[in-house]
């Protein structure tokens, strides 16, 4: 399993596992995941986990399989739909996408992202 993330708390918590650090935005994580799916990996967690909207939280973590096989169409459809949804939300400007956001709120966004990915990957 490879965990793609732009959330430092996730990278820290899963440091003993296979983490691919994405030095970029929520969307950049989705794009990286899409590229890995094109290389034959499968999505393991839903790219739009959580009810925080894509124009709200700046953090995203997604798990994909380490193994590579034939192109997995279900994974590809999910990630493409997620990118499309992200872009739809991005049309409305929000104050809290990592720019001008108080550190306490950023910490809370990191915490939610970490909690969701932890509960998804527990014992796996």
């Amino acid at each position, binding site marked *: 399993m490879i965990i793609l993330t732009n959330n430092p708390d996730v990278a820290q918590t899963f440091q003993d596992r296979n983490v691919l650090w994405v030095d970029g935005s929520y969307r950049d994580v989705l794009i990286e995941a899409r590229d890995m799916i094109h290389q034959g990996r499968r999505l393991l*967690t839903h790219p739009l986990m959580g*009810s925080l909207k894509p124009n709200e939280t700046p953090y995203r973590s997604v798990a994909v399989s380490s193994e590579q096989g034939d192109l997995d169409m279900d994974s590809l459809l999910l990630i493409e739909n997620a990118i499309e949804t992200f872009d739809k939300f991005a049309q409305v400007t929000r104050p809290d996408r990592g720019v001008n956001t108080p550190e306490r709120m950023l910490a809370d966004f990191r915490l939610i992202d970490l*909690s*969701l990915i932890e509960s998804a990957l527990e014992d796996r």
Partner: protein
Amino acid sequence: MGIIKITDIQFAAESKVEGSVLYVNRDELKAHILEDETLASCELDIAKPGESVRITPVKDVIEPRVKVSGEGGVFPGWMAKVKTVGSGRTNVLKGAAVVTTGKIVGFQEGIIDMCGEGAKYSPFSQLNNLVLCVEPVEGTLQHAYEKAVRLAGLKAATYLGKLAKDIEAEEVRTYETPTITEGIKLYPDLPRVGYVLMLQSQGLLHDTYVYGVDAKQSLTTMLYPTETMDGAIISGNCVSACDKNTTYHHLNNPVIEDLYARHGKDLNFVGVIITNENVYLADKERSSDWSAKLCEYLGLDGAIISQEGFGNPDTDLIMNCKKIEAKGVKTVIITDEYAGQDGASQSLADADIAANACVTGGNANTVIHLPKMDKVIGHIEYVDKIAGGWSGSLQEDGSIVAELQVITGATNEMGFNTFSAR
């Protein structure tokens, strides 16, 4: 179900229900709630329909109920033993609610306005609300704070519900579900219809509990519909104010209510299948496989599927719909939409041709203007930081321009709201 109508709520020296007025001894209830050592303070306030009051950030809404007869107690696994509920008689303080607020995380959300434009969109604007503002002791982590707020709400609702234990209700509603075999004998010619109730179950601030069990740890299973009326399902879901199912929604599920109204007339309401919405994709596959399997096993002709939340649950919804339809069971899905402020974009993050019968709770991106309120209970400074608000949402005159998703219950995906879907 004994209905005790409440038309007013007041603080008084003694907690009691007299006529249609609910009297609350503020100090006694406060002391009861503060027995939880996680909590540093608890403020109680009252918000009635028509008042110039704004409540925010709302965590949960809970209706006070009490078991009068039958096994178990309301909110099993939390406020009562885990004994199976759903039989006998339950008294309800109809028209009253407990509303919990707390700034568990910085971006918190959920507004209930008691008058004006916003009151049109929330069913809770029509209730006599006892509002709890609870603060934790310093150093309490968010997980523990969330749980403390959740339990404080259940405690307060249980305390109020017990005031109605010995009242003889004037209106009594009866709900009956026969066993599978009885149902077939009673209504051999009526279509068999089930309800697939999807529960949010992703992690911190995104959880639902069934008899005290975290729904994400549970396989898809079945309930008698009446179990939900005794609080078998409670909400720990604090994100996505407009389309989360509060505990109040679970207690008053409109799909269950409407299916009972037609039960034995033009359909046979077989039961409720509860299934989770987990983040891990293999969990989604398993849970939706089991939903479809149970629909087939019960010999359903039709199923109504209701969703909770945004994005990721769209995938669970479509998986459930596709797989149940593939078993030859006709489905209707209930959801809401994020179709952009102009309503022109794709509504859901997932779709399938099998989802050809859909009821919508409305477009959560619709822009609304909420006037200034004289009084705010909770923390107004978060309005810029909540889902559906944006930089400048809070205007200089105290009014708010934001998307409909800021309002608690506005686009509820059980179809409870008044916005549409009726």
